[in-house]
């Protein structure tokens, strides 16, 4: 099998074999991808994308999360997964993990063969429809005029707001937030809080390849940050109610304690979707 590391330059060659969203994602700072081709036919037999996490965080170990994985057969899939460990920056990675819904049996077998654990579990992502969000109490009150949609601010203002967020260590779901353009985010659903002529809060929403919306950053400066967060959510829910169909879904990822508490308050009793979750611990001794 020929293994090729994917990059912005070569990814279009393989675009028929994985979701189109990865054509953009591969250009992101911490996104990586590998594709395995048949030596004779050059047909794609397996492909994997992963994202590096905590690369700059001195207080946490560097990890890699598999974002998407496909294999025609378990043997080639396992071989490709092991190739991840040969990528040079793998020296830094201490843990390789995945949490994926709807994995096929071939992929499951490949992961097991590559040394990953597997358990069926409740996923970290909670989904709510636009219709459900509209019925929440937070949709009722008026939104103050210091909350503006993303489309009404300039790129410079956006960068300033992102800079404020990252200077406070707030990256949301996006390890590479400082490098992402404003155009990535939904211009009408995403919003910001402008106080004292500065962007001091951001709610960034992105549309996933599944068509669902995902909240990727929710940040506001003190004082009264919690009130401002609520106001931005109110705004987003109101706009979503007008622009989106009631059955369209929004994904809330419970990636830390604060987000888990927020989701718990907004949607008490709502559970995450079933996923297959697994991990492979890496030490320097595991390197081939």
């Amino acid at each position, binding site marked *: 099998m020929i293994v090729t590391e994917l990059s912005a330059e070569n990814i279009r060659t393989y675009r028929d074999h994985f979701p189109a969203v990865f054509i953009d994602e591969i250009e992101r700072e911490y996104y990586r991808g590998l594709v395995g081709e048949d030596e004779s036919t050059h047909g794609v037999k397996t492909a994997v994308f992963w994202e590096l996490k905590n690369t700059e965080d001195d207080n946490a170990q560097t990890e890699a999360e598999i974002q998407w994985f496909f294999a025609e057969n378990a043997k080639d899939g396992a071989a490709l997964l092991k190739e991840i460990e040969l990528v040079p920056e793998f020296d830094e990675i201490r843990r390789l993990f995945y949490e994926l819904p709807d994995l096929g049996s071939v992929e499951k077998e490949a992961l097991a063969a590559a040394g990953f654990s597997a358990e069926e579990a409740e996923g970290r992502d909670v989904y709510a429809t636009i219709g459900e969000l509209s019925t929440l109490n937070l949709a009722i009150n008026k939104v103050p005029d210091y909350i503006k949609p993303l489309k009404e601010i300039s790129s*410079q203002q956006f960068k*300033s707001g992102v*800079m404020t967020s*990252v*200077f406070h260590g707030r990256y949301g779901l996006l390890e590479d937030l400082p*490098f992402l353009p404003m155009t990535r985010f939904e211009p009408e659903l995403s919003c910001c809080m402008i*106080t*004292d002529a500065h962007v001091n809060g951001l709610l960034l929403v992105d549309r996933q390849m599944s068509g669902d919306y995902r909240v990727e950053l929710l940040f506001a400066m*003190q*004082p009264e940050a919690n009130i401002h967060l609520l106001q931005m959510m109110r705004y987003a829910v109101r706009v979503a109610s007008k622009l989106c169909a009631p059955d369209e879904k929004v994904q809330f990822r419970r990636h830390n304690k604060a987000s888990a508490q927020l989701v718990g308050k907004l949607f008490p009793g709502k559970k995450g979707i079933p996923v297959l979750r697994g991990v492979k611990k890496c030490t320097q001794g595991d390197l081939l």
Partner: protein
Amino acid sequence: MGETFKDFGQMLADIILYASTQNDAVNYFLYYSSIILTFSAAVGLIFLLILHPRIRKRERPEDKFMFWECVLVLILAGLDLFGSFAGFLPLDVMLFVVNYFSIVSEFLYMLAIMQWMVFVDYSLYHSKDHIRRCYKFAILPILVVMGFEIVQFITFHGPFEITDALITLVDVTKVLEIVVEYLFVLRAVQLVVSYRKETRQPRFLSLGAFIVPFIIGMLIRSYDAAMMAIGVLLTCVAASRRDWYLDRETNFYNRRFLQYLATYRDRNRYVGGNVILMKAPGRKEDMARILKESKPGGSSLVFMGDDTFLLLSESLRGSAVKMAVMVFTEAAEACDPPFTPAFETIKQGRNESAEAFVVRLTNEVENGVTPKGVTS
């Protein structure tokens, strides 16, 4: 012995309730000492208004807040002094004037506490929008209480019979006034407590400088105007300490602040710190303007002299540094004429104290080390 304690307790209660005690010596002492205190404090406020450069110029919002606070309390002190000498008026006129002035004084008293609370809030967060939003209706409780006071005034001085209901109204109004005053004070305390939980930045406020005199003034009502004035003076002195650490030209912090911050952080055992060092030779004003406009919210800037600036942060990932460098560089290149500042990141070591870090940082700046440009 029991009788002595009872008399003493009664005297204290009379003092707190602003009534004359049974002891003439105590009454005279309270009367004259309150005049002396109020007069001295008023003179202090006048000197502050005339001589304090920041309050005189009122360029910054916190200086404006403090200016109006001083004016309010000065008027309060003036009314108090006038009331003390109102004895030369005919009795019925004196009663009318004293009661009228007491309504105005009470209004000013509550307003002064509210203004102090607003000053505390602004001193912590420096957000005018937040002040406008939060305190838009803060005066309403004061106006409601004043409504009660005016009703009492009209009833006492009008052709109405003084009934038990009216006496009760008087008592309720007094209680409401105290509740409103304490709520403002508690709000200020709550702001400072929240601030300490949210951030590790030092604050140049001393709540005790106002609250202690305020409580004394509440307990000894003869002293309330004087204690309010003393509280404002002490608050101003405490807040003015920050000016010692500010560079007059840029209004950023100066070198002295680094040492103060280091001591503060070591004392509180805060660890981790990063600095982006920026040099813009010959373009100090432009760089200062860019940093004021583009700096990340809640961060601190230090002007080291020689066109060198520092941006302080508790923790800084490489991507955040890159972003700051990119934003500042873009802004500098958009200037006329354009220029390119140089940047370097200096990190505090894991086991390095803040004091040692500041010494190292200052050495690097003073030895004229040229920043390497964008760090990766």
